[in-house]
């Protein structure tokens, strides 16, 4: 059997390095889910099964690791939170939007908290936080398009701002952690309140 070509060896090395990078990102996210404290490089390396040096060979500093973890979370979050029932009736759209958002909050709240706590003066993290919020707004606009279209521009903006505040990560966190609501109870609360805040659904024209 001949030796592998040089390009095949480089490809293999690159794949291994990518896997290591991915394992480090996942270790960071797993630690965040277990404890609200920001993990140290030593803890991340131990969880990932690599040395601290391995981490800093792939990420110049912990800030770069946070940015990579955020991008990873965005990619997964987008895949999991596919818009569903966009043309459903009002109760179906309400349930669909709330449940999708609730799952996102349940899964990504620890990372969101770490991002906010670490954003400091980091332009990259601030930009990602902003992007995350814009995506939430766009989703709300999409799911409640029939109701929002009946409002003036100013009222539409006001309603969107209110809905975004209501369905914020920390609002979810407080319902679950502080007020002790179950996942279903918390969803039911959001559904009732959003239903109350939205204007009546216009009758479709035939």
């Amino acid at each position, binding site marked *: 059997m001949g030796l592998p070509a040089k390009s095949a060896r480089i490809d293999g090395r690159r794949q291994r390095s990518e896997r290591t990078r991915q394992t480090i990102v996942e270790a960071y996210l797993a630690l965040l889910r277990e*404890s*609200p*404290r920001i993990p140290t490089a030593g803890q991340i390396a131990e969880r990932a099964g690599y040395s601290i040096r391995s981490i800093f060979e792939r990420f110049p500093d912990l800030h770069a690791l946070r940015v990579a973890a955020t991008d990873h979370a965005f990619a997964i979050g987008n895949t999991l939170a596919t818009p569903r029932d966009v043309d459903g009736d009002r109760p179906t759209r309400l349930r669909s939007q709330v449940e999708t958002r609730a799952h996102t909050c349940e899964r990504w709240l620890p990372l969101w908290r770490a991002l*906010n*706590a670490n*954003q*400091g*003066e980091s332009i990259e993290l601030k930009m990602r936080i*902003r992007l995350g*919020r814009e995506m939430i707004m766009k989703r709300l606009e999409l799911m409640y398009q029939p109701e929002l279209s009946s409002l003036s521009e100013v009222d539409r*903006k*006001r309603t969107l*701002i*209110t809905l*975004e*505040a*209501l369905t*914020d990560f*920390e*609002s979810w966190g*407080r*319902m679950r952690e*502080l*007020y002790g*609501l179950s996942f279903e109870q918390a969803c039911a*609360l959001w559904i*009732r*309140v959003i239903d*109350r*805040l939205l204007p009546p659904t216009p009758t479709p024209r035939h």
Partner: protein
Amino acid sequence: MAAPSRSAVIDGRRQRSERTRQHIIEAYLALLRESPRVPTAARIAERAGYSVRSLFERFPDLLALSLAAADFAFTQANAQAVIRNVSADRPTRIRTQVETRAGTCERWLPLWRALHANQHYSPELRQRLRFMRDAVMRRLELMYRPELSALVEAERRRILIALEALTDFESWARMRSDHGLTSEDACAVWIRTIDSLLPATPAVS
């Protein structure tokens, strides 16, 4: 002239020490308002006009200083957020509650953020944050008692949780920074939202 008595000397020293402590807390709060970064001991000491050693003579660590700042802020905020118009009509009560809450958010947001970011390192800090949220809930209950009293317990709780989420510090901050609303426009958003969330005001019998 007779020498001051021993207790007068001790009292004077205690007062000076208390003033130094207060200056340090105020320097910490001023720095938080200027930048979102949690200030270092050296910056706080410099701003207050004392040495770092003086700071650590009064506070064992920066967490203790943030706790003292939280207590100071809570007292101040309570004094500023005087309860008004509790028995007024619905629009007056909504406007009063919203403007009072907006004033608190506008003034204390930087400290709130610093406390929030550090809460996982101190049970005392968590307890104070909880206490502050309880105070917000109690104020909402007081101001909207006529409307809330018409609801069953479960529904009342739901409305209170929703009102608390909507009038949170960060909700205010996003209206002002991300969405660029003026203080008046942001108050108008809250007023409309609260008005649509509350049930009808029962007629006075």
